[in-house]
């Protein structure tokens, strides 16, 4: 959903708008929660709680276009808290298997990219929740370090250190598992804030 449409829906904040936001962001929010909890049953509950909290406090969202990121923060925080409280009781489900892309790769580059993606996905699954959380916010929601810090109520330095550790883990796996051809740096990293 386009940021403009999100902003309008959030600003409107009536029942229909809320339902539209819910349907637009349910899947992604559920996935984020599920990756932390690894339990479908609990992920459903926490995802619903996250939407309720978000809608109840929507007036506090200053940049309405950032609803998705804000919701991700709420959901992942709830999931982390739940995990800490209930970790002895949670029965974890298996995450879906990571397979290489089904589509045939036309070029060597595409094949390589697919392999790299596979490795990074594995690494993402191994991240502890607090690192996973900042990775999602930084790389998926394109939030700046300062914004993540403000949303999570942690210092920008802590955000950076979590990102650094997460990248370290991903780099390590790439280094270990990727074929030598992976080592052709392409650049494209987002500049640091």
């Amino acid at each position: 959903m386009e940021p403009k449409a999100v902003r309008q829906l959030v600003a409107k904040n009536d029942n229909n708008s809320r339902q539209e936001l819910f349907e637009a962001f349910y899947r992604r929010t559920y996935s984020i929660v599920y990756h932390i909890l690894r339990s479908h049953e609990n992920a459903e509950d926490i995802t619903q709680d996250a939407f309720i909290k978000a809608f109840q406090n929507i007036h506090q969202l200053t940049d309405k276009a950032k609803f998705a990121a804000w919701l991700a923060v709420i959901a992942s925080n709830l999931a982390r808290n739940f995990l800490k409280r209930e970790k002895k009781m949670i029965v974890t489900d298996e995450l879906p298997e990571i397979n290489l892309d089904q589509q045939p790769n036309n070029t060597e580059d595409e094949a390589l990219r697919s392999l790299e993606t596979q490795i990074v996905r594995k690494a993402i699954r191994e991240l502890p929740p607090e690192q996973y959380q900042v990775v999602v916010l930084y790389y998926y929601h394109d939030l700046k370090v300062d914004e993540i810090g403000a949303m999570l109520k942690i210092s920008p330095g802590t955000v950076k250190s979590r990102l650094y550790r997460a990248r370290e883990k991903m780099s390590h796996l790439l280094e270990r598992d990727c074929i030598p051809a992976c080592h052709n740096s392409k650049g494209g990293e987002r500049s640091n804030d």
Partner: protein
Amino acid sequence: MIEQDNFNLDHQLIREALQKEFDSVETPSPFGKWQRIESRLNEQPERRSLQDYSWSRWAVVAAVFLVVILGGIGFFRSIQLATPLADSEAPSDVNEEFLIMEEDDNRSEAIMAVEDDAEIPIEESVSIMEEDAGSGDGDQADFGEVASTVSDWPLLLAEEYRLYNTIILDERDGIKSEGAIYRSGSNEFMLIKTKITGQSLNQYLQYISELIGVDLELIGDLDHYLQFTVFEMPGLAWQNDRFDQALFVVSGNLEVADLEVIAAEIEEII
């Protein structure tokens, strides 16, 4: 710090990997779930009235304030001192009550952040007693005296709880316990900080119980905290390498999960 690696670990690759991860999860259909959320949203929010406060809650409020008042003049002095603090602005415009959930910013991360020249938000921590200081370490403060030498209490916790009052609770045998009351609306909690003595958390709670003159009921471990209640209101105690600390609700409807969040923040600061 988030510099380019020697590998193709670029932004787009991580984004693609995340997208694939999201897509791979079998998500239940959102249809039908909206009604449940809608009905929960439409539920009338619980309104608290004075009648909702049980006598036990009033009792703990009274006990804590008795500690303060019996302590002497410090109470009134600190109110005067605290007034401008209560009027001060929060350092951030973010005010998401439910975002006080960052629970496990552990020490190693804080240290790492420092190593990275990161700014730990210590600007919220201020020695409010600087003007009253000057008595030096050798002075013995009376019970209930305004804390004067040790603490840098954070002015604001969880974005909304403002420092309302601070007192010295105990200075016997070189042990120094200080307390601070934080307040936001009808919610109040007390934070007690004691120089570490090597005692166990159980012993520490016993000590706190004697100090404030109320019984604490032990609940059990909660992460690295020891959970307890004071007149059925939740409390947490924990230790680090410098202090034993206890945090408990004095009034309002704060729950243990709220305290965990606040405790985690305190652990980062103190």
